[in-house]
């Protein structure tokens, strides 16, 4: 009981081959699109890699890039095969290659699907990575004289200005970190000494934020020092003041940014996967139709094409038996010349 049997006349076979040739070339283009999407994602992640603690998220763009390149090669080969399959004599050349090609392409489309799903599932890992990365970046904000960390201040400032965010979860994160270097603190001043003594680790903590947290939407000049002290500023209540500083945390801002990019990329990759599946089905039909033509002997007659010759269960069983018997190349018990029954 064949699965998905369709009968093809000679003209239909030729039309199918031509159509598949065209579709394979379009698939080469989609492979290029896949490659460039992976490249774009990699560049975007690389731009902000200083605020990400681990680089595992790079698996997603790398997967897309390799899949794109492999897609180009496979579909280029597929196009060549389909072009020559219109003619039964040329088909003989490709006969042995075609079934392995179809199996490989089937596994490859599976990889494309995995790539698409990875785009959607990476969110949690990204959030964790951003949380740790931003926490470290804020901790080392003041270390502009330490090699390896001297540009972290600039990076964090530009990040906060560009994404319109402040701190890790909110602006209060800056209150728990010493973000002013000791080089610029007057240790002889009583105010500084009081602050340093007020906490266990001897850090200069204050209820102030860097200038990059200031919101451009505020109608009044930015209040970045003594943010929680209502009496320090005229006509100011920090509980009701919404526009003074950016309210959103940078972790949320970056997460939203990357999630939206990866969602769109994931959608495009899913569409490409569906298209590849369609092309693969067409190639399978063409292969089985051409093989049946050869079996029948007459190149001009009608032939059947199918996806599977027998039902799914029988095909699985027969393949399983083949794999089981692969190891046994030589049945000692069956050979009549050994231990002949006298």
């Amino acid at each position, binding site marked *: 009981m064949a699965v998905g049997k369709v009968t093809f006349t000679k003209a239909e076979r030729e039309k199918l081959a031509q159509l598949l040739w065209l579709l394979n070339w379009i698939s080469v283009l989609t492979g290029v699109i896949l490659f460039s999407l992976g490249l774009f994602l990699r560049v975007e992640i690389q731009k902000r890699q200083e605020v990400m603690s681990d680089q595992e998220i790079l698996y997603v763009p790398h997967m897309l890039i390799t899949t794109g390149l492999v897609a180009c090669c496979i579909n280029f080969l597929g196009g060549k095969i389909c072009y020559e399959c219109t003619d039964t004599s040329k088909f003989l050349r490709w006969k042995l290659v075609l079934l392995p090609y179809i199996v490989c392409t089937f596994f490859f489309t599976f990889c494309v699907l995995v790539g698409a799903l990875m785009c959607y599932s990476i969110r949690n890992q990204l959030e964790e990575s951003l949380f740790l990365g931003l926490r470290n970046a804020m901790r080392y904000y003041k270390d*502009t*004289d330490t090699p390896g960390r*001297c540009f972290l*201040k*600039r990076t964090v*400032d*530009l990040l906060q*200005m560009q994404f319109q965010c402040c701190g890790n979860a909110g602006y209060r994160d800056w209150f728990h970190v010493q*973000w*002013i*270097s000791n*080089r*610029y*603190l*007057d240790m002889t*001043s009583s105010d500084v000494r009081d602050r340093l003594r007020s906490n266990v680790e001897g850090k200069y903590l204050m209820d102030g934020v*860097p*200038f*990059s947290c*200031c919101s*451009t*939407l505020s*109608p*009044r*000049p*930015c209040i*970045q020092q003594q943010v929680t002290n209502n009496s320090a*500023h*005229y*006509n*100011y209540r920090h509980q009701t003041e919404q526009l003074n500083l950016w309210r959103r945390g940078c972790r949320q801002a970056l997460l939203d940014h990357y999630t939206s990019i990866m969602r769109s990329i994931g959608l495009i990759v899913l569409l490409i996967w569906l298209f590849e599946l369609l092309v693969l089905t067409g190639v399978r039909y063409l292969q089985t139709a051409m093989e049946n033509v050869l079996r029948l002997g007459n190149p001009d007659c009608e032939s059947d094409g199918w996806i599977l010759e027998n039902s799914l269960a029988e095909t699985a069983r027969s393949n399983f038996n083949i794999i089981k018997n692969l190891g046994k190349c030589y049945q000692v018990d069956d050979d009549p010349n050994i231990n002949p029954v006298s």
Partner: protein
Amino acid sequence: MVVMKMKFPFEKRVKLAQGLWVLSWFAAVAGAITFTLGCILKTELRKRAEVMDNTDVHVVPNTLMLVGLASLGINYFAGKICQDALDAGRFPRWKTFLKPYFATSCFFTVLMLLSVVMSYVMKGSLENSLKIGLRNGIRFYKDTDTPGRCFQKQNIDRLQMDFQCCGNTDHRDWFEVQWISNRYLDFSSKDVKDRIKSNVDGRYLLDGVPFSCCNPSSPRPCIQYQITNNSAHYNYDYQTEELNIYLRGCREALVHYYMGLMNTIGAGVLTGSVLVCLRYLQTAMEAVAGQENTEIETEGYLLEKGVKETIMEYVDPVRMYSHLTRLRP
């Protein structure tokens, strides 16, 4: 008195037509690029329209867009003429069309060269416009409650952050303007009263700048208040501190940016050379017309008569027309 006569055998005519066809397609692409550049320049100028006092400088992108479109059309027809040029039977239908075509093409080539010159000439006007626009922007920075001016603060802040600049000429422009609104000043405080009394206009002036002047590349947290007072901050010297706030003025930054955009014009040369070759082809083909043997050698030239006589030839019909319209009451 023929101007720049050249001999053209048949093969040379063929080569001229083919080369010219390719050249005219390149020039059409260049025309499209010029049009796109004009659009980009216009968009960029409109983005910052709030800090410009007048729109005089918009004549440069407008001319570029006009010339780009015209060049596209002109070179398209040049290509078509070249295709028909080698067929002596099809060439005559272009004959009546060619004289006005050359006149308009010369006009647009001159216009394109003029736009290149204009972009340099407009620099002074742009600078003036920006000077007035920025001065007003800084003056109305505090008026976030006045309708029509409530977005000035946001615009100036974004401008200073995007272009990495501070103030009009430099950061000291902020010292001469009250940029903190009276709504946020405590008039019962002694400090505020002293500052207001210290100048004739009763304005609250201070040696501070808005946060958007702060430079993220500075190794220390931004010092935006009491900038000139060395003793107010630890380990700080106003004269040697270069990274704290942006030292460049916004006027200079914007002029630099727009001049950089306007200096990317160069397609005028290409269109000009296409025209010269086309003229040679036309005159060579004219000599062939009516001959039985189309493969003979002919002469081509730029102008049949001298330069002065050719100009008179074009101007006379225009003069006669204006004379006639003047006679009629």
